[in-house]
């Protein structure tokens, strides 16, 4: 991974005697390559590497007996800081129910994550209500209902002939009347450039005032992660991100891109297809994974 590449680079550089600032700048190329190969966005990499370089040309590296290790340490610290401390807390409404809305591109893992999140919240002593807000995808409502059955948790649905706005409003009313203190709204996958469907999300937000709007992002997303996150954030005001399919072997640079461009905390990590496969996001573990 990056550690070995930096060792190699610094071996060659140190061979000439004392390390110079120019030498460290050469080493930054390895950091840049590692991040790009990990799918971190090009512009995010530029900003990140210049930050690291600022620290790396300091005495801690130039005077060190193990400059490669010093650089790795700086990169790891900067990455971990950037991706934020562990904050998997869902913001609880002052007056129940707490409303959570899951949004994102097609196939990211929203419906499955809705089930997983309901499971986590129930284990925390909550009484979640799942809401079938996807009226477009074939058998989407059925999919959420099956998950609800598997979890023995209620799923609210008005079928696919009512608008998602109406479904969301009716669901919140239902929650109030049935003692559900958490409402998790599954929405249809959509492109950030689909104006009509993005407006639909704004309408839902306006009508039910969610306490959390969580962007669900596939961990294997490439450079486009920045466009998607930025657009969803600008149009809706995200409160957090959930990264899915982290049980794969993707380096997951999208995590850094999304955090850098929105500033939103990554609250959870999806780590499998089963309904118990949702963990709090660990930024330090993610940093190590991205560096490879």
């Amino acid at each position, binding site marked *: 991974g990056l550690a070995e590449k930096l060792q190699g680079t610094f071996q060659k550089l140190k061979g000439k005697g004392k390390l110079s600032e120019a030498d460290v700048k050469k080493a930054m190329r390895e950091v840049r390559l590692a991040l790009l190969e990990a799918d971190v966005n090009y512009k995010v990499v530029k900003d990140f590497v210049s930050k690291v370089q600022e620290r790396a040309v300091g005495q801690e590296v130039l005077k060190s007996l193990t400059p490669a290790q010093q650089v790795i340490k700086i990169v790891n610290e900067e990455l971990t800081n950037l991706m934020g401390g562990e904050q998997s807390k869902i913001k609880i409404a002052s007056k129940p129910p707490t409303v959570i809305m899951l949004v994102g591109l097609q196939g*990211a*893992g929203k419906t499955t994550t809705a089930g997983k999140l309901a499971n986590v919240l129930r284990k925390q002593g909550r009484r979640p209500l799942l809401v079938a807000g996807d009226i477009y995808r074939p058998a989407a409502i*059925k*999919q959420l209902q099956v998950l609800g059955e598997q979890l023995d948790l209620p799923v609210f649905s008005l079928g696919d002939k009512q608008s998602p706005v109406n479904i969301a409003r009716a669901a919140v009313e239902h929650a109030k009347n049935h003692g559900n203190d958490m409402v998790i709204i599954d929405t249809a996958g959509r492109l950030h450039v689909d104006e009509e469907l993005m407006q639909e999300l704004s309408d839902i937000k306006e009508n039910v005032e969610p306490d959390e709007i969580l962007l669900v992002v596939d961990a294997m997303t*490439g450079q*486009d992660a920045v466009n*998607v996150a930025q657009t969803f954030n600008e149009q809706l005001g995200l409160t957090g991100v959930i990264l899915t*399919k982290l049980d794969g072997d993707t380096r997951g640079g*999208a995590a850094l891109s999304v955090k850098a461009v929105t500033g939103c905390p990554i609250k959870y990590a999806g780590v499998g297809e089963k309904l118990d496969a949702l963990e709090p996001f660990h930024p330090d573990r993610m940093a190590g994974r991205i560096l490879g």
Partner: protein
Amino acid sequence: VSGKREFDEDFFEELEEILVQGDVGVNTALELVDRLRDAVKEQKIKETERLYQVLEQSIVEMLGEDQPLNVGAKPSVIMVVGVNGAGKTTTIGKLAHQFKDQGKRVIIAAGDTFRAAAIDQLEVWANRVGTQIIKHQEGSDPAAVAFDAIQAARSRNADVVIIDTAGRLQNKTNLMKELQKVHRVINREDPAAPHEVLLVLDATTGQNAISQAKVFKEAVGVTGIALTKLDGTAKGGVVLGIANELKIPVKLIGVGEGVEDLRPFDAEEFARALFA
């Protein structure tokens, strides 16, 4: 961007940036830009329009010749594979519709016996398109569904059988073994089948797509790629590296969620779109 200009290092770096942002990957981007730099010197290129022509040409060359699906046999068996959420089931619906339009008799097989409402989802497509569907109980053996579908194709004189499979991440060894079993069962029924193993790849995927293509190819011999969700802002540049390293051609592109949103891959259009 046209006219004459000096192509300096800043210009080539900008090109590299555009390619990388299209998910072409750093190594492939560097390879393309290096080749271009040489061509600019050799051919003394002074105009941007000419330069972009040369660049597009080298991208088209890297992608290889446009290849159609292998549907000459009767019945032709198409096995559809890929990671979770890539667009397999939807692509099958679109493909079935396309074949029907061509006057072919199509059977689709609900080979995802695992995920919640996967069979229901494919069934909606079967009804929408007007094709027959072979399905078993949820939780049953996907290889049995594939076997059943091929028998049905023969007895009902179908032209094409399209077999859906459950999404799986390529590092899940047991799931890749399950996929190999489905492939074996198909192959035992007809040594020429599956005639097409289509890897469905989401255009928003980054460099992990290379590993997906590699592992799925090793496991079940991928013969073509269906690149989905190109109606978004992602460019799908990973297919360049896949073509370069693994020689797997892109045969189809998905450009939306509707039944008509499937097109044959056009390398020149794709190359141009990388710079749009």
